């Protein structure tokens, strides 16, 4: 898997919630402009790993990271690294759509404004660009001033994607982004992922194996905090190296 395209490298990563070891010796590389899926049964550590990549686990008391996570060669857990800067470049979309109780426009401009973007014309252009990227522009262009809470679940999730994209991140982390959505909204988001990977690196955690197979280029299978297998998606789903992977994807457990 190692080549010049690598954007994030995890090297021997261990992670602890208090005394509980949630990840054991995870080493894997994520490639630029690719979609990488992380799959595995509940509690296998896939979401934990995802949240390590933009330091969201910092918010939980009593956690500890070992090993190194390099983003463009720099350890994001290094002493001088500001997690706020990491999160500006590595955006995240959550399981449940979580728009702010603000207007659609202000949801998108919230982050960029605080990062210093002030000019109205810039902000307007950014909103349009972000909404177009998230395929929400046609539905939202006339109601930008309305509360984001008025949108449907699927629209809210696309708004959350637009909001993350407005920060112009390099990487987009998605934590089961469609698990709270109906099939039609799910299909829209999957199409979107396909479109977005031209510009962004996407790492997606999913419970839905068909989804992983449909949208990703590479897939990592986690079990009990360990990375069991990491291969191109087609190979992992048709001819896995590991017996455990095969058992999982054929539905024998999990």
């Amino acid at each position, binding site marked *: 898997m190692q080549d010049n395209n690598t954007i994030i490298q995890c090297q021997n990563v261990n992670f602890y919630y208090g005394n509980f070891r949630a990840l054991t010796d995870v080493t894997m590389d994520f490639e630029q402009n690719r979609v990488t899926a992380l799959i595995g049964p509940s509690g296998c550590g896939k979401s934990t790993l995802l949240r390590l990549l933009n330091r969201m686990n910092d918010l939980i*008391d009593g956690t500890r990271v070992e090993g190194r996570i390099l983003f463009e060669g720099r350890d994001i857990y290094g002493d001088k690294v500001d997690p706020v*800067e990491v*999160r500006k470049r590595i955006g995240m979309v*959550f399981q449940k759509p979580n728009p702010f*109780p603000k207007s659609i426009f202000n949801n998108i401009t*919230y982050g960029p404004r*605080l990062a210093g973007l002030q000019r109205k014309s810039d902000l307007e252009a950014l909103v349009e660009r972000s909404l177009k990227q998230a395929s929400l522009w046609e539905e939202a262009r006339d109601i930008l001033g309305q509360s984001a*809470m008025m949108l449907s679940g699927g629209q809210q999730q696309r708004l959350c994607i637009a909001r993350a994209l407005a*920060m112009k991140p390099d990487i987009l982390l998605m934590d089961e982004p469609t698990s709270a959505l109906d099939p039609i909204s799910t299909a829209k988001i999957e199409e979107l992922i396909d479109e977005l990977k031209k510009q962004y690196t996407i790492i997606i955690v999913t419970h839905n194996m068909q989804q992983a197979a449909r949208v990703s280029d590479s897939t990592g299978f986690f079990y009990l905090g360990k990375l069991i297998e990491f291969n191109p998606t087609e190979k992992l789903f048709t001819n896995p190296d590991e017996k455990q992977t095969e058992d999982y994807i054929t539905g024998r457990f999990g």
Partner: protein
Amino acid sequence: MKWRYLKQNVFFLMVRLSALSIAVAIGAFLFYIFYHGAGVISWSFLTEPPRDAMTKGGIMPAILGTFYLTLGALMIALPLGITSAVYLSEYAKQGPAVRIIRIGVNCLAGVPSIVFGLFGLGLFVVFLQFGSSIASGALTLGFLILPTIIGASEEALKAVPRTFREASLALGVSKWQTIFRIVLPSALPGILTGSILGIGRAAGETAPIMFTAAAFFTPLLPKSIFDQVMALPYHVYVLATAGTHIEETRPIQYGTIVVLVALVLGIDLVAIIIRSWIRKKKRW
């Protein structure tokens, strides 16, 4: 079969009666007060100072004094209480230190109000030499309602979904900005509701202002925050116990109580209106 229905009916009856007894108690209390006090309420009663050794005239200085004291207490306790709550619920690492602070806050809530009065007398009136004044009284009342405000603020902050915080932080927004821009605005209506209910209580307190702010009688209106004022609850106390013409001042006493009760219920009503307005607006 019949026996079971009988038991059920007896039980329901008891439950109904207890609920009813509360309504009756409040109703009787309000009726008694208004029956005795409503007669003296008039425009001049509300706008004139007392005359003829408080046997005639109005209670305007006391209304104004209570207003100043309450406003002052709110101005002191609200910023202090909100910032403490933000620290406790957003910043502090949960551990022994925070537990001690929390225990302290709870103890403060349980301290009898007369103790606050004496504390205010010792610290503000005597030691800091503010004298018996609006400043001393407002500070004392402020500390009295501080636990209420901290409690209400903490509850309101906890009610803000964690997902809002995560969404903001994940955009590369700092923790301080997240609290200031997302968490506090979402929690503010709840904070205000709890705080207003607290201030309603403070407006009716007698003991804390007895030694720190309230004047037995002063026809003059305060010119600065270091002047003494009259206050409604203390005025009631004075008229009921310490006056020289207790029988003649009885109607004024009830009138003052009517004004005080109306004021406190009015403040509570504002809180209730704000709360129902939030519930309608809230969509998360």
